[in-house]
């Protein structure tokens, strides 16, 4: 009675099922790579540590890559569920508030100026700086443009406008950097970086991004109950006791931390935050608070799967994760539009 009937995998079975899927894909990711070693030998090298080159490959290349895939995917999936819940719109995605574009700009500037070459932390830290500037701008702009309830267009409307402005400006500045880049090698490095990838990442990226992402996850987890009430609209939610300005602050800061950190270490990976909440919404009965953890696990699974796919499809060519995701994401996006238009 207390548990609504939902999809094929319902209620309490959903999260464990997604967790198992993540675990399987994680293992597959660790076992996938150009170093041609058997699964058994790879696992022995990973856990026992024979000190040979295979141990190095497993522990310093494949393991951090898979861990980063989980972290990035969970951040993007969680942020996507939160922004869709906050804006009450299934077409919203975390990049909408301009944090990805700004983190990207920070990283691009670091590559262009050569700061990125000064240390392993320089690139992600520049990305964080870009995300921080974006958050300050978005909060400043949206607080002025649409805070109060106004004919059903409350804080969400102001946030979209501010996000579009910040995204467009960061995108323009990124193009300007490429445009004026005197160094073709830097330009090509920037272009490849912007495509998004988990290749050649190390534990340094993991330990840099994880604390910031964790802050973002905690902030977004605290939006859960308010997002449920927001299902009925901003007015009804406010009358039910939701503090809308606080909710907006939690959502923006949470997404900025989770997605800013992801972009800073992995580049721009689109579509995860859009597609994953859409795919899982039916299975959680549409309830936003239940969609948050489900989308985090689903995002991790999707990024792990895509990162395995880029290594299997074109092992010789370094197919970028962001490109792969966009190729897979577009048909799903079209399907989403189709479903919305036909009222499913």
């Amino acid at each position, binding site marked *: 009675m207390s548990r609504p009937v939902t999809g094929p995998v319902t209620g309490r079975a959903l999260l464990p099922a997604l967790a198992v899927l993540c675990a399987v894909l994680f293992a597959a990711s660790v076992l996938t790579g150009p170093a041609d070693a058997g699964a058994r030998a790879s696992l022995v090298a990973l856990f026992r540590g024979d000190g040979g080159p295979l141990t190095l490959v497993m522990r310093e290349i494949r393991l951090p890559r898979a861990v980063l895939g989980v972290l990035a995917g969970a951040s993007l999936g969680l942020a996507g569920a939160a922004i869709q819940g906050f804006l009450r719109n299934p077409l919203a995605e975390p990049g909408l508030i301009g944090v990805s574009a700004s983190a990207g700009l920070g990283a691009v500037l670091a590559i262009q100026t050569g700061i990125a070459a000064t240390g392993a932390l320089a690139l992600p830290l520049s990305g964080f700086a870009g995300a921080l500037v974006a958050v300050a701008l978005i909060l400043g702009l949206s607080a002025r443009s649409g805070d109060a309830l106004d004919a059903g267009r409350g804080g969400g409307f102001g946030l979209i406008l501010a996000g579009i402005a910040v995204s467009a400006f960061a995108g323009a500045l990124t193009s300007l950097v490429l445009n004026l880049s005197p160094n073709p090698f830097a330009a090509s490095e920037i272009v490849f970086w912007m495509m998004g990838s988990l290749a050649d990442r190390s534990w340094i990226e993991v330990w840099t991004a994880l604390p910031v992402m964790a802050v973002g996850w905690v902030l977004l987890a605290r939006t859960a109950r308010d997002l449920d009430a927001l299902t009925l609209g901003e007015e009804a939610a*406010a009358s039910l006791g939701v503090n809308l300005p606080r909710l907006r602050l939690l959502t923006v800061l949470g997404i900025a931390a989770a997605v800013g950190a992801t972009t800073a270490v992995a580049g721009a990976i689109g579509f995860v935050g859009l597609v994953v909440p859409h795919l899982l919404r039916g299975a959680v009965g549409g309830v936003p608070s239940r969609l948050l953890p489900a989308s985090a696990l689903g995002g991790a699974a999707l990024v792990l799967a895509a990162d395995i796919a880029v290594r299997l499809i074109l092992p010789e060519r370094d197919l970028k994760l962001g490109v792969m995701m966009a190729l897979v994401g577009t048909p799903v996006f079209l399907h989403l539009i189709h479903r919305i238009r036909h009222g499913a």
Partner: protein
Amino acid sequence: MKPALTLDRLTVRRGGVAVVSDVSLRVMPGSFVGLIGPNGAGKTTLLRAALGLIPAEGQSDLAALDPGARARRAAYLPQARDVAWPIAVETLVRLGRRAHPDRREDAAAVADALSRMDLTHLARRPATALSGGELARALIARLIAQDTPLILADEPEAGLDPAHEMAVMQLLARLAGQGRAVVASMHDLGMAARWCDRLVLMDRGRVVADGPPKAVLTPGNLQGSFGVSGAFLDSPAGPVFVTLPPRPMPTPDPANGL
């Protein structure tokens, strides 16, 4: 007895224009107040300002509360009826329990609200798959599940078929009879006259009449605020109020014929 709602000289300005002007109102427990007035009279704005959802000058005892305490004191049904996600009707109704600290009472309150709104058979249906009238009832069930001493509703009867419109008004009247206070904006003057014990007539942001239905629905008020006339007629179920076309203006020049 302590009033359930006290507004003192509440004024809301939008772009320099007072859309609600100097409204003072006390609503006692047990009263079902119908807030009537033409489109744009300021009924919705008054309800929002009373709750403190929009900035206002003057005093509202509700707006002074913190959001959680206010949600236990007053439930609000806004006009906006769109539900963003396909949540089950039962889940939707349960949202009304948000501000209550004791989760153990939720199930009973939700089941009671569902059965009062004739929705028990639709409890598992996604809210987005309901008809307009069913959705309106689900949202009213949420209002009931919130279980507050004061209910503010913005056009609760909009979009309902005659039977369910009657049922909703009867329910609100019964809730008032049990000692709650209900303030509902409405356009159906006949329903308002039949079920409310007090009508507050607003026009251009001001309260222009306040009292029992017969004292408010006078020919002068009807003509002045709504541009219609109306009458209380006897029926087997007691006096009923009907709105009628405006009385023809006296023709100044008889030579002009009709």
